[in-house]
């Protein structure tokens, strides 16, 4: 299954060439999307279709719009122009079927919650106010914790966990939510190889079961190894296609531009100093002053 996206054109033309017809079993669809923060354009002219069961990595340089894309799909960011559709409705309408795993850096790890609590949060949206989690919810959470192999750490506070364990706890939340769409922001960044394998194996299972997984990563090797399709984003969609797309030097040049140093045949170095997309003013929530950023 391929992800279709229209590469950005040099000329402004409001009519998209491809990607907005209704035939494909599309779970996520962006058409003609322009979006940014304050006056700054973050993503330009995005057309993107993600079919059911896809396992997509969104790659690109930092600040290029990866997290922005994820937020658009999650429905927490509204596009300036164009439409974003998820599960057949505007993004956000079916939010209970979408699970979002945020970047580890943005989480307050000193918050007094246990692994079980975090996973149970995945069940909250479907419960509504006043209703308590019931047996079905507890069973779903227990099953999710089993799958991520965190059942024995269920009562630990998240602050006491290692990086990999923290990642798995949030994954359990997404799974307990029984979502149809997984949106993961840098899921394999900063975790050891075995945990990477474990997490991506889970996501592959989910994709095989018909869920749609979209994850951002700046780790090209991980993208190639674990994902089935790739969308390269650098202020616009630079390229999209099967996972081995990023081994193409031209594609790499278009994604990383001046950050790519070509050493010789088939070898290149990408220098992309680690920093985060600025979440920017419009989206500031009270928690973001809490030093979640480096």
């Amino acid at each position, binding site marked *: 299954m391929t992800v279709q996206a229209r590469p950005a054109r040099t000329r402004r033309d409001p009519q998209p060439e491809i990607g907005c017809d209704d035939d494909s079993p599309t779970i996520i669809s962006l058409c003609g999307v322009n979006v940014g*923060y304050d006056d700054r354009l973050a993503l330009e002219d995005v057309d993107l279709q993600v079919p059911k069961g896809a396992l997509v990595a969104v790659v690109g340089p930092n600040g290029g719009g990866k997290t922005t894309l994820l937020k658009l799909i999650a429905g927490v960011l509204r596009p300036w122009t164009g439409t974003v559709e998820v599960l057949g409705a505007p993004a956000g309408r079916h939010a209970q079927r*979408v699970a979002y795993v945020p970047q580890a850096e943005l989480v307050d790890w000193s918050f*007094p919650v246990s692994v079980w609590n975090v996973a149970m949060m995945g069940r909250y*949206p479907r419960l509504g*106010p006043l209703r308590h989690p019931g047996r079905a919810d507890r069973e779903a959470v227990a099953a999710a914790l089993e799958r991520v192999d965190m059942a024995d750490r269920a009562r630990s506070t998240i602050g006491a966990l290692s990086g990999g364990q923290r990642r798995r706890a949030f994954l359990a939340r997404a799974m307990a939510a029984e979502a149809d769409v997984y949106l993961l922001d840098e899921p394999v960044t900063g975790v050891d190889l075995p945990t990477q394998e474990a997490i991506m194996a889970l996501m592959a299972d989910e994709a095989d079961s018909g869920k749609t997984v979209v994850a951002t990563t700046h780790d090209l090797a991980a993208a190639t190894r674990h994902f089935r399709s790739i969308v390269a984003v650098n202020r616009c969609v630079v390229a999209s296609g099967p996972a081995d797309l990023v081994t193409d030097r031209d594609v790499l040049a278009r994604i990383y531009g001046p950050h790519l140093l070509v050493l010789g045949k088939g070898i290149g170095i990408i220098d992309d100093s680690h920093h985060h997309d600025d979440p920017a003013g419009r989206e500031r929530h009270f*928690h973001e002053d809490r030093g979640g950023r480096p």
Partner: protein
Amino acid sequence: MNLQETVLDPLAFPFFVRALVASMIVGLVCATVGSYMVLRGLAFMGDALSHSAFPGVVVAYIVKAPLYFGASIAAVGTALAIGWLTRQGRLRTDTAIGVLFAAMFALGIFLFSTIPNYVGDLFGFLFGNVLGIGFGDLLSLAALAALVLATVLIFWKELLYATFDPLGAAASGLPVARLDYLLLALIALTIVISLQAVGIILVVAMLITPAATAQLVARSFGRLVVTAAAIGALCPILGLYLSYWLNSASGATVVLVESGLFLVVLAATGLAGRLRRLEPEAD
């Protein structure tokens, strides 16, 4: 003077019993709402909202409306304004708070200065006048406190998720913006309830200190709130008794008791942490 007299003598006076009950209720509600504030870094916001109640009180005094009515409108209005300004995104949160805080308080002083005659009532709002709480005041206070606590209970899960991970919560469909505004409104309402007991200047301590103390020892969110609420409800007992026998300002004495407890727990948990590091590592 034995222990029995120390405890029972003040209880013979209805004003003391009312002050005690009022302080306990106020302490309980403040600590509950304050738990969210401590986890979200809203302490400055709390102080700002309490100061912004002042012009509301002054205006109500001038137009001869109930003072609590004016305080509520001013505090809740400022809370929503700060929330809105922050979401517009052009200012950092603490800048927005600082600007509105100072402006509102200055507005209050400005209006205050235009009142030609003496206004002792308004001083009571600055520093609290828990000894002056009548039976009717106590009933309104209890009713509003029940409203705030009920709201917190009803939206317990949603507020927890939105506090912990706003992005994840929003993505999974919770109305995070509305929950933010709800929390701000609850804070404002809690402050208004507490004005008579501790006054504008000190109410932030009632909000923050018990929750800060609880944060040192609680390992789950539920336990944090319950511990904070217990501290908030029990410290005023000691505080009021102390103020009775020492003949000191009641609100300030309660705050000092809460702060003292915080220091004690801080020292104890710090010591415990150091001892734990000496023990062999268990996994």
